[in-house]
């Protein structure tokens, strides 16, 4: 059994209420931080913990905090990113639904560390039930004296508000989120200036993912060094993984960093293997924008080492034979799934969600979608595959925000690892309409690399 820091009490009845949450040791971190630590101490502990942003980019949280500008007389803001729109990711929704006070407690500790007196939790609009849950939890915390003026008699003031989004994937990007929070269209801003200098209302702002903020609670309670003992290398602590697709037990799992991918997929403690007795064909390991890998490359690296659930191991081999941790959206595909159809589906998603600011993304995503539709429906030609490759290459790195990259990578990886499936669609248009390419050689063991 791996250690659980965030979901330890998730099955306790009534854990969504303040009373039960406190019985289980909740709000200790607030008492400890506000009464016995300076804001700098809290930042120091988070730095020592090695916590990396759980939203997708994996940037060290403590370092992000230390960049925050602190000019005299200007308010600073903490904004929690609960937009959670990366396909395959649903951990933040789970956390907010079942243990909302973990996020509130993290918000108080983090806001204290950053010197923010007003903080916002931006939650995607579709999660209206979760918005209500968070609002109720805030009310409870306020009534108990954990929010408002002079918290616990320490002289520290904090108000937290929940802000609903409007159903735009792009608002998960931090500058687009800030635009949206200011009541505008979610068009990402050009950086620099970074939010740490000019963020919400042009004031210094930190934007952190729900899970990152919740993770500051065990870090303050037990110390950063204790947190850093879990995990391997620069992947410390625990991570929430959203498992979906053709698995026996999809759902949200808290894992210790360093768990072998194979164990995560097949062990009964986690996903319990592939549903309906089928075989694994491919996995998208970190949300729809990270490269898809065939079964043999997700369980083992190209050198034959077991692949582990860490930032480093998942990225082993770069984009040639590796992938990325991303947001932890683990999507498993069984042998009946069609890679071309799935790639078309993702590309349609990115075309739909592109904000339209940058031409490569606005035009490129739609163009790729049309080509993929053509191939999937039996009208493709071999040149189309090369054209797809060219288009994705010209989107990547040429846009203001990473949505362009996120749209390009899945297409690139699908062609890189499953090119023969695209070609089969083109060569056998009739057959491709009626049946699926299947597993073919994707399930075969990897041939060892020899000199």
């Amino acid at each position, binding site marked *: 059994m791996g250690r659980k820091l965030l979901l330890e009490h998730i099955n306790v009845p009534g854990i969504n209420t303040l009373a039960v949450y406190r019985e289980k040791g909740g709000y200790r971190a607030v008492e400890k931080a506000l009464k016995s630590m300076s804001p700098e101490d809290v930042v120091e502990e988070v730095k020592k913990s090695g916590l990396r942003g759980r939203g997708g980019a994996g940037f060290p949280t403590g370092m992000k905090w230390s960049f925050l500008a602190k000019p005299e007389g200007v308010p600073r803001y903490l904004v929690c990113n609960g937009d959670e729109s990366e396909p395959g990711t649903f951990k933040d929704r789970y956390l907010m639904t079942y243990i909302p006070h973990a996020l509130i407690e993290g918000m108080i500790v983090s806001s204290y560390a950053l010197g923010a007196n007003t903080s916002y939790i931006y939650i995607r609009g*579709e999660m209206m039930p979760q918005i209500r849950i968070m609002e109720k939890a805030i009310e409870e915390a306020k009534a108990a004296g954990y929010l408002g003026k002079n918290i616990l008699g320490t002289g520290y003031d904090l108000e937290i508000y929940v802000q609903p*989004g*409007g159903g735009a994937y792009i608002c998960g990007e931090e500058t687009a989120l800030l635009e949206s929070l200011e009541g505008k269209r979610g068009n990402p801003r050009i950086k620099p200036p970074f939010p740490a200098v000019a963020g919400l209302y042009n004031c210094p702002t930190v934007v952190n993912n729900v899970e990152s903020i919740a993770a500051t609670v065990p870090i303050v309670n037990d110390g950063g060094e204790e947190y850093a003992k879990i995990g391997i290398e620069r992947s410390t602590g625990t991570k929430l993984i959203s498992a979906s697709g*053709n698995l026996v037990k999809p759902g949200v799992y808290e894992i210790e960093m360093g768990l072998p991918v194979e164990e995560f997929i097949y062990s009964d403690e986690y996903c319990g293997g592939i549903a309906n007795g089928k075989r694994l064909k491919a996995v998208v390991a970190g949300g729809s924008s990270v490269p898809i890998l065939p079964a043999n490359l997700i369980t083992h690296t190209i050198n034959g080492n077991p692949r582990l659930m860490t930032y480093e191991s998942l990225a082993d081999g770069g984009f040639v034979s590796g992938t990325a941790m991303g947001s932890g959206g683990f999507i498993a595909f069984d042998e009946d799934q069609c890679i071309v159809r799935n790639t078309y589906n993702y590309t349609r*998603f990115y075309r739909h969600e592109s904000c339209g600011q940058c031409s490569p993304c606005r035009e490129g995503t739609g163009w790729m979608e049309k080509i993929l539709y053509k191939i999937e429906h039996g009208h493709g030609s071999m040149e189309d595959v090369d054209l797809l490759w060219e288009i994705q290459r010209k989107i990547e790195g040429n846009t203001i925000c990473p949505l362009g990259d996120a749209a390009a990578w899945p297409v690139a990886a699908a062609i890189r690892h499953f090119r023969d499936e695209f070609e089969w669609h083109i060569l056998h248009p009739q057959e491709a309409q009626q049946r699926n390419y299947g597993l073919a050689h994707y399930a075969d063991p990897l041939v060892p690399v020899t000199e």
Partner: protein
Amino acid sequence: MLSVKENMIVEFSADLLKQFSEVVSRYPEGKQKSALLPILHIVQAEYGWLSVDAMEKVALFLNIQPIEVFEVATFYTMFLLQPSGKYLLEVCRTGPCCLVGAEKIMDHLEQKLGVKEGEVTPDGLFAWRGVECLAACGFGPVLQIGPSYTFYENLTVESVDQLISDLTNKSKNEA
């Protein structure tokens, strides 16, 4: 697209205006525009959609230009710019849900309700559309129904039929 053919003249009740003011109080002085998205959600929950007149009145309330409301309402997909059915069934159609049969659910809805995506049934009760990822991938296929945005998870053809008949009965009892 903004509907110019259809408009609905609205007058915000005292209760709605009170809710608007509460939202505005969450932001610093002069930053009342931040209240735009929450207020549009409140208006849509009240009237079912956002008419041009309603949006103009929101602009007036927030002391911003009407175009600032229109550009936001057209950007975010949750805002409905045309009237829809009483129950708008929004089915997730993105990757992970399709792996577990979302397309089948949408085909079934089209057949069962007898209307195409985006259209409203003749009795005005139902409409359906595919939407992008709803962050419930592990419990797919899923659909949501506004304005409370209740989620219905692990859908099957049978559970969808049940849901439709429940909603039909609920609506009859309300009438």
